[in-house]
């Protein structure tokens, strides 16, 4: 045995000397089960924030009113035109569309598919997402074509003394 290692290469009488046995049992049956149990734990923990936010919404804590924000002057937006704005925070881009004389609609314009910015096509009276040609109904925010499945979250608007104001983010009825 001892003189074998002095000859390189020594005569082989088996084919196992080159198997590295370190960590051989790292992922045996038990280790694998441990990993799976750990994964279940990770899933459980990662469900917590979703649950927390959902519970908060259920308790009505999410229903907060934001300070009214002026979007445009009524005279600056013609019927059939749209304006982009940010509401409720400056990171939430939104779009206001004047559908008729008295009717204004506003939506959060992040596409409900993969959050591309949706824009208003005046000629076709539709909101279109450039990324995968998703389309939304301007009157309701409901998806009408393409990959999006959920409606765009509406923003309640109010017209007072010559200006259009964003009041709050509507919870859409799904």
């Amino acid at each position, binding site marked *: 045995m001892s003189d074998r290692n002095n000859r390189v290469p020594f005569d082989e009488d088996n084919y196992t000397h080159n198997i590295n046995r370190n960590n051989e049992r790292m992922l045996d*049956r038990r280790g694998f089960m441990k990993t*799976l*149990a750990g994964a*279940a734990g990770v*899933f459980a923990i990662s*469900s917590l924030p*979703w649950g927390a936010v959902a*519970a908060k919404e259920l308790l009505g804590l999410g229903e907060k009113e934001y300070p009214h924000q002026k979007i445009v002057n009524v005279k600056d937006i013609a019927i059939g035109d749209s304006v982009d704005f940010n509401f409720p925070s400056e990171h939430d881009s939104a779009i206001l569309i004047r559908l008729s004389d008295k009717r204004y609609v506003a939506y959060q314009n992040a596409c409900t598919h993969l959050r591309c910015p949706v824009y208003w096509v005046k000629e076709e009276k539709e909101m279109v997402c450039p990324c995968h040609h998703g389309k939304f109904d301007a009157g309701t925010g409901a998806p009408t074509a393409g990959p999006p499945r959920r409606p765009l979250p509406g923003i309640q608007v109010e017209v007072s003394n010559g200006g259009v104001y964003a009041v709050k983010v509507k919870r859409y009825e799904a």
Partner: protein
Amino acid sequence: MKRSYVGVLLLCTILLLNIVFTQLMVHQFYYEHYATTLVYGGLNILLFPIALLIYRKEKHKGGTHGHEQ
């Protein structure tokens, strides 16, 4: 070699359910069905103790390995 794979299969099933529930939870959240979101989240959390239980029970079961015979 005789091995017990029941535990492994059960835990794999739990992982599958975890993935399914998480998917459903996230979708229900974005649909704003918050009560349903909570249900799926709860199920997800419930699966963890079950997984631990199965692991504890199955830990020492299973294979006599070739060299241990």
